[in-house]
């Protein structure tokens, strides 16, 4: 399954901050076929540093970030469903963001890009869904920030979402989550190459961005998974160096992940997207989470993981209990995993069973034709 990136253009996009973006591009990929009624579409929403390449393999042979969940016979079964994923607003992987050219000035936006929210991201996805002439989504789903977008979809467009599957997500960031994001942002801003965001003609703030990524990576793993993966093993040496070179495997791993990230991610996107996550609050001025969820009539499958300390189960339960309080159709499962927050990406065995069973039920109850499509 070779995945092709496609794009869609929109003249304007109104944002929560009051600004209007002009000439907005969305990059997306899709897998599987729409049925005749166009009712079997599943929108995949990516996490913070993800992109539209969710499934299949691209031209360079790189598998999508959720390729273990998307494909024939997998949780998001492309023999039954039309599955698609778009790079988020503010991103740097094909969709308009701070590294894009501002059509008004002919120069890159950098920090003149307006501050965006999760709801703005969802508003742009809604434009894409309309563009694809999809009247109603069978499901919206994603992990982490993808789960926040899924929740926002169910609240903002209640008539368009048959099922909502937020995984390892939250209805709002805690102080701890904001604190980690702020640490990443400050690492970037403190880099001498940052130049107030105006670094596109020179070297990028690579050291700051790499440090931000290192911090992020720690929060995506668990104490247990780090002990298993690295322990206190030394890197290519028998004894410690009594210096500040790399001694431990874990240091080497984090530095590698940090430097690799610099090549594929824009520091300004890092600032904008983390801020959007921190601003996110599903209640949005409603007196309670339950009140905010009143309008939705989606069926929910909420999943959390035992070792996820970045988006702990109590945050998923907050959503689930608000829904139960309104007697909404909500299924909740806390899966056992030692992989921490990354579990939704890497530990997908049990996740697959419950997602496919849930989707089959939703399709059946909604009378949606999700019969296996015969290969043409």
């Amino acid at each position, binding site marked *: 399954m070779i995945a092709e990136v496609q794009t869609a253009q929109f003249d304007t996009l109104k944002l929560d901050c009051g600004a209007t973006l002009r000439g907005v591009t969305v990059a997306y990929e899709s897998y599987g076929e729409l049925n005749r009624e166009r009712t079997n579409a599943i929108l995949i929403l990516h996490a913070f540093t993800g992109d539209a390449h969710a499934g299949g393999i691209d031209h360079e042979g790189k598998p999508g970030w959720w390729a273990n969940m998307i494909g024939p016979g997998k949780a998001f079964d492309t023999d039954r469903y039309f599955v698609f994923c778009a790079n988020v607003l503010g991103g740097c992987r094909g969709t308009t963001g701070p590294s894009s050219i501002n059509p008004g000035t002919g120069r890159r936006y950098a920090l003149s890009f307006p501050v965006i929210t999760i709801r703005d991201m969802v508003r742009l996805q809604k434009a894409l869904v309309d563009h694809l002439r999809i009247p109603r989504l069978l499901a919206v789903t994603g992990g982490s920030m993808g789960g926040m977008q899924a929740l926002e979809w169910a609240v903002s467009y209640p008539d368009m979402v048959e099922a909502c599957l937020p995984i390892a997500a939250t209805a709002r960031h805690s102080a701890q989550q904001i604190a980690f994001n702020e640490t990443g942002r400050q690492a970037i801003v403190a880099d001498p190459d940052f130049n107030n965001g105006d670094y596109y003609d020179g070297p990028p703030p690579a050291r700051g961005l790499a440090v931000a990524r290192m911090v992020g990576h720690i929060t995506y793993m668990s104490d247990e998974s780090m002990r298993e993966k690295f322990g206190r093993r030394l890197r290519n040496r028998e004894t410690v160096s009594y210096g500040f070179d790399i001694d431990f495997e874990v240091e080497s791993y984090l530095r590698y992940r940090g430097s690799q990230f610099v090549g594929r991610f824009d520091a300004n996107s890092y600032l904008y997207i983390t801020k959007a996550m921190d601003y996110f609050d599903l209640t949005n001025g409603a007196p309670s989470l339950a009140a905010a969820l009143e309008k939705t009539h989606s069926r929910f499958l909420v999943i959390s993981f035992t070792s996820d300390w970045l988006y702990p189960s109590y945050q998923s339960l907050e959503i689930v209990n608000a829904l139960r309080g309104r007697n909404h159709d909500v299924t909740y*499962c806390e899966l056992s995993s030692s992989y921490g927050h990354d579990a939704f990406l890497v530990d997908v065995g049990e996740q697959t069973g419950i997602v496919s069973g849930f989707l089959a039920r939703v399709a059946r109850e909604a009378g949606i034709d999700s019969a296996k499509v015969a290969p043409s």
Partner: protein
Amino acid sequence: MRVKEVLGRGDYALISELVPRGARVLDLGCGDGALLAWLKEHKQVAGRGVERQRALVQAAVARGVTVYQGDIEQSLPDYPGAAFDYVILSQTLQEAQRPLAVLEQMLRVGRHAIVAFPNFGHWRVRLAHLTSGRAPRTPLFPHNWYESPNIHFLTVQDFEEFIREQGWKIERRLFLAGDRRIELFPNLLAEIAVYLFRRS
């Protein structure tokens, strides 16, 4: 009279007899969701389940049952009042920390409650206790005292009196021994008791 077992269980047969078509049902301790799936298919109920054990929850979700992974006693207060027509508690009452609180909550979130429990007054239990002088172990109560999940032991007579004291109204009472319905001397002869009751 023999009952036609549902999913290989006599108590399920009685419960399914009590649940009318199209009802809104909450199954507490729903296990792998087999009963809810059966009720959905044969009685078109709108079903929800609560189950504590992770593996059972996963099995239930995989077969398309709406289930909440959590503790019965802690999760009940979150549901709004009168959200269900029938709330089922099958073979779990004797394991609840606070049975009265559970039953009160059941009648708050549901219009009717269905409770099935093993009868500790069955003659075999009495005989085992009398003859062995030890905590009775029978096919119905097979566990050693130190590993039994049962923390409350009750008989048909206990339950009847208890419901009367609460001022609730028993609508149906059904008794089983094996796959046979028991009509006479249920406190002595019934292995499983199933009650349908509501607030009066």
